[in-house]
């Protein structure tokens, strides 16, 4: 009874067309040495050495302890992850040790192994047999196979349970059983098929019930007539087709066999499952059957012992962990008697097998053959001659490569060219080396070059990352340096002006002092500065006062510079002081800005007084001027503060965790934009004021310019406050708050929208109405609206920043949202400016209120 769903019409077609692959060689088969006798059971070794990694993927995890008594078939190590396999005790006994030992690998390196001392009792642990295995579900079968620790026994050792999960994308078109056994000397699959074909077919049917393929094929070479007969008998009443392929090495290679049976090529870099083909070994099938039917884990395999040095060659069923030197001695291995002759022990066949460095290497799940040749049957290779470019290698290559070119590139270490010539498609079958007339060890060159290329790629990746980090750091340092230079330049210019002013110094510094004191108290709030402005009409002789202020300013600046230097030093040598110093820097920056503000105010007043003396304009324009001039320094102060906060934030970037750097950089950039926006607005305000001065006889001014200014100041204020909140948000935000913050952000967005809409309406209303009649109303409305708008915007931004810092994965989304909002904010502000510009820029009586 078979559980395969195949079109019944295929039952009629018994012979299926067999295709061909390029190249291939015909070495001497040497199979008769070991396939004449049936499989024998190897004796029990005195010590079993079980490596934890006998498969592709992660090594298994040990679950037993030293000194523990274990039963035959008891699990010793669990699979670690999906691509891994379990390990079981091949016999009952005691765990002697778990330590490093030489493993079956070409490198001869050591790896962790479990040392098991058999007690000779061969006591099985409890097994879960299943007579009715055909009724099992796919997941049950997968579980049994996984629990049995079955890996591909053809030589690769890929965990079988992975192949038993049908690929999601492609349907399994063809399920192929690899019975080709193309390598010379190896006959384990041959004997297994001759003696236990029914187990193999049963296993195949179990797998087919999971994969549900369209076709089930067995690929076998024509040098195994008895095995073919046994297979045909076993598949008599099934839909499995036995396809006989001509004997050619390497027709047992997975890709080559697929090409032979289906004429499809597995694309480079992909696996057969990508084209709907699954390929497995016959030994694996027998193991699957035993696991599902009898619950037996994988604890032994059939290995060919062959070569002229082994007197009783043949196939043995041997437990894993059996040391190879002990095993071959049981079968009559005799080291060569020739003096100075070094022996070769090959695990695998003569074409792809590797020599063992340590004779006590254990048998593992992938050991299909142990070959002990003498000098005559496998002589040592002659010394290599120069390549004569005959092209016999390209004729033999089953992967249709140009081995000759690959050889030249490997010699010249032209790694890029080698990779371009598809070096990584080489399956290392050895056909090219076999045919080379100059006896060049081609495969060895390719292995070496593959390793070199992999190493080079890893190094490139590392250096790319290092370079990116370095460049980011350089940019930051340059930026800091540029800012410092700009500041110093500005200071130098102001100092020069102060010098000039000092020359034209006059009396009455008192009044200036009062005014500056008042201004001093309220520098933190730009609004309050403005209320002071009307009182500062009289400007008598500010020159001396100017000089004093300049001095104060210079001193403050010098102190600030010292603080900055200390901060820089701390960054490198004393990280613990950075926060303290940053705060100190901030405070000093404030002081500097205040001093600057005072000085500029005084300076402007002086020039205004001069101007007013000269021009004799009406009071209003004058007040407007002064007030505007007062406003502008205030704006500048605010700007400076914003800039200082920005630099503080940038310093915080240096200290921040690497994960936060991204967020903070973005925040910094945002703030820079804000600062720039504030700057531009300031310039615009200045320009607006200039035009105000020029039109000397204008009587009324709309509320908008003043209101504009106040709005701008508000905006700047908000930007500044937001910066500090940003800092806090970054420090404190927790990932779990994302949900809350998202909702809050959305709410605020709505509020912002509403506030904006209101504002727009108010503005448009105002434009169409006469200023005299509706001054008060708009005045009340617009500032309030704008206040609301700005508040909403700032809150929104704050939340967004919090969001940024909360979840690294959501950063992308939030960045986009933040950008959008940024644009909106800027658009709102531009709209404001436009509204103001569309009106005449003249003062009103209401200049004092706000």
């Amino acid at each position, binding site marked *: 009874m078979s559980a395969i769903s195949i079109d019944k019409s295929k039952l009629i077609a018994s012979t299926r067309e067999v295709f061909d*692959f*390029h190249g291939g*060689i015909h*070495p001497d088969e040497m199979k008769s040495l070991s396939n004449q006798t049936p499989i024998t059971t190897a004796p029990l070794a005195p010590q079993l050495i079980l490596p934890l990694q006998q498969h592709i993927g992660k090594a298994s995890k040990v679950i037993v302890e030293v000194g523990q008594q274990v039963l035959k078939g008891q699990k010793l190590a669990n699979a670690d992850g999906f691509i891994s396999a379990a390990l079981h005790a091949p016999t009952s006994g005691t765990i002697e040790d778990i330590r490093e030992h030489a493993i079956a690998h*070409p490198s*001869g390196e050591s790896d962790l192994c479990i040392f098991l001392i058999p007690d000779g009792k061969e006591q099985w642990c409890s097994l879960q047999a299943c007579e009715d295995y055909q009724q099992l579900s796919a997941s049950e079968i997968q579980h049994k196979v996984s629990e049995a620790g079955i890996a591909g026994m053809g030589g690769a050792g890929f965990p079988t349970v992975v192949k038993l999960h049908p690929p999601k994308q492609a349907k399994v078109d063809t399920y192929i059983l690899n019975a080709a056994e193309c390598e*010379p000397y190896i006959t384990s699959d041959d004997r297994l098929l001759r003696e236990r074909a029914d187990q193999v077919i049963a296993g195949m049917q179990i797998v087919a019930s999971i994969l549900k393929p369209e076709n089930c094929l067995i690929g076998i070479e024509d040098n195994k007539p008895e095995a073919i007969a046994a297979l045909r008998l076993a598949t008599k009443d099934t839909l499995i087709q036995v396809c006989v392929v001509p004997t050619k090495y390497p027709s047992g290679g997975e890709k080559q066999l697929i*090409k032979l049976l289906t004429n499809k090529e597995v*694309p*480079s870099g*992909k696996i057969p499952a990508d084209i709907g083909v699954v390929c497995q070994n016959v030994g694996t099938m027998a193991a699957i059957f035993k696991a599902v039917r009898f619950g037996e884990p994988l604890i032994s395999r059939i290995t060919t012992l062959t070569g002229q040095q082994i007197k009783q060659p043949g196939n043995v069923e041997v437990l894993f962990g059996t040391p190879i*030197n002990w095993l071959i001695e049981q079968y009559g291995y005799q*080291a060569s008697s020739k003096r100075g002759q*070094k*022996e*070769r*022990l*090959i695990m695998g066949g*003569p*074409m*792809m*097998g*590797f*020599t*063992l460095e*340590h*004779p006590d290497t254990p048998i593992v799940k992938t050991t299909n053959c142990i070959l002990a*040749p003498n000098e005559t049957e*496998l*002589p040592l*290779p*002659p010394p290599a*001659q*120069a*390549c*004569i*470019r*005959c*092209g*016999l290698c*390209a004729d033999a290559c089953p*992967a*249709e*490569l*140009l081995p000759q*070119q690959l050889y030249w590139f490997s010699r010249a270490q032209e790694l890029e060219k080698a990779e*371009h*010539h*598809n070096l990584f*498609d080489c399956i290392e079958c*050895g056909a090219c*080396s*076999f*045919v*080379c*007339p*100059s*006896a060049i060890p081609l*495969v*060895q060159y390719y292995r070496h070059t593959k390793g070199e290329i992999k190493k080079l790629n890893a190094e490139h990746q590392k250096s790319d990352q290092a370079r990116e980090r370095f460049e980011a750091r350089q940019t930051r340092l340059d930026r800091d340096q540029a800012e410092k230079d700009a500041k110093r330049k500005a200071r130098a210019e102001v100092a020069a002006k102060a010098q000039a002013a000092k020359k034209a110094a006059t009396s009455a510094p008192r009044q200036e002092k009062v005014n500056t004191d008042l201004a001093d108290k309220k520098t933190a709030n730009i609004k309050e500065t403005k209320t002071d402005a009307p009182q500062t009409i009289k400007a008598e002789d500010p020159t001396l006062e100017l000089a004093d202020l300049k001095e104060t300013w210079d001193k403050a600046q010098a102190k600030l510079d010292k603080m900055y230097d200390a901060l820089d030093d701390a960054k490198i040598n004393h990280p613990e002081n950075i926060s303290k110093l940053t705060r100190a820097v901030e405070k000093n920056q404030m002081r500097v800005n205040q001093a600057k503000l005072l000085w500029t105010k005084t300076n402007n007043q002086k020039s205004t007084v001069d101007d007013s003396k000269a021009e004799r304009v009406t009071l209003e324009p004058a007040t407007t001027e002064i007030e505007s001039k007062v406003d502008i320094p205030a704006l500048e102060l605010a700007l400076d503060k914003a800039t200082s906060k920005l630099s503080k934030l940038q310093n915080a970037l240096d200290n921040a965790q690497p994960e936060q750097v991204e967020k903070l950089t973005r925040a910094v950039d945002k703030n820079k934009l804000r600062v720039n926006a504030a700057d531009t607005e300031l310039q615009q305000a200045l320009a607006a004021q200039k035009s105000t001065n020029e039109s000397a006889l204008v009587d009324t001014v709309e509320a908008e310019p003043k209101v504009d200014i106040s709005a701008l100041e508000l905006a700047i204020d908000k930007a500044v406050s937001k910066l500090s909140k940003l800092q806090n948000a970054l420090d404190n935000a927790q990932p779990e708050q994302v949900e809350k913050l998202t909702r809050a952000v959305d709410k605020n967005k709505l509020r912002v929208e509403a506030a904006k809409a209101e504002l727009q309406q108010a503005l448009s209303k105002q434009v169409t109405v006469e200023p005299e009649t509706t001054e008060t109303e708009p005045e009340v409305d617009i500032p309030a609206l704008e206040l609301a708008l700005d508040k909403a915007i700032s809150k929104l931004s704050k939340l967004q920043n919090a969001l940024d810092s909360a979840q690294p994965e959501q950063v992308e989304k939030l960045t986009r949202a933040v950008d959008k909002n940024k644009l909106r904010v800027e658009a709102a502000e531009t709209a404001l400016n436009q509204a103001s510009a569309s009106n005449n820029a003249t003062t009103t009586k209401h200049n004092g209120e706000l």
Partner: protein
Amino acid sequence: MALLTLSSPHSKGTQRTSIMMRWVIGMTIPGLIAQTLFFGWGNLHNILWCGLVALACEALVLIVRKRPIGFYLNDYSALVTAVLLGLALPPFAPWWVSFVATAFAIIFAKHLYGGMGYNPFNPAMVGYALVLVSFPVAMTTNWATPMPLLDAVPSLMQTLSKIWGGTSLPDAFSGATPLDVYKNEIAHSLSETVLENPIFGERYSLGWEWVNIAFLAGGLLLLALKIIPWQTPVGVLVGLALPAVLLGYDADQSTPLMIHMLSGATMLAAFFIATDPVTSCTTKRGRLIFGLGVGLLTYIIRVYGSYPDAFAFAVLLMNFAAPLIDVYTQPRTFGYDKAKRGPKSKEAP
């Protein structure tokens, strides 16, 4: 037990470079026999003399390079060069002509590039071209008249004294080659008149046709043994035949096809010279293009150039082009949709 660690594969095929070289030398024997029968002892002597010179020069260079002499001389590559030169040079060429040709070929065209496998140009052809250009008189006046046309054939002693002693031969012994004759005569005669010249024999070229047929036989045997690929000789012959048929169909204007194919060094070049694996292309398609190029260039130089036989130059010119042809004729690798042709093309599989 002490275990030897070696890299796989551990099995080795039976083909060896020295075996291939010996087959190449061996397969020239039919041609050599034909040459001796028709043109006397000259070629045989030249082969022996060039062989001696080649081995001596190689040994000398290897001593200077501090390499094991036996290992390198045993690959028979120097002997192949010597044999090809011995077959290609005129039978009565003075000893110093063949000496210069061989010594230059071995020392300059082979070992100065790194020895066997590293030379970009065919050493025998380099030597031949050198003496052809440097000693034009010696290379054009020392061709032998086919023996059936002579009343008295030159004896071995006479041949040796000519080659070594420089004694001038009786006029009858040396003569122009059929290609030379036809090319010069057809300029002012009709084909029937030209073909009346006894040098053309009854069919195409007296003596030369048998030599070429013998070399063809040897070459086909090499093909059967898979020592040489079929693309190169087929390419050469097609490359020569096609223009001869398309452009030289009029026997009254230019040399007819069969004289091209069976006279001169056509078959020798197609099967033994152009197929030198070291200097030829490595890809199958590339070899075809290489062969076609050699044939075409030979035709052009023969008809429009001033040399009656032009294989040396044609082969050398195609040796220049071989690496580039290789780059552009890469085959498709298993598992890819298209071949990656050209130096930097990156085809996705």
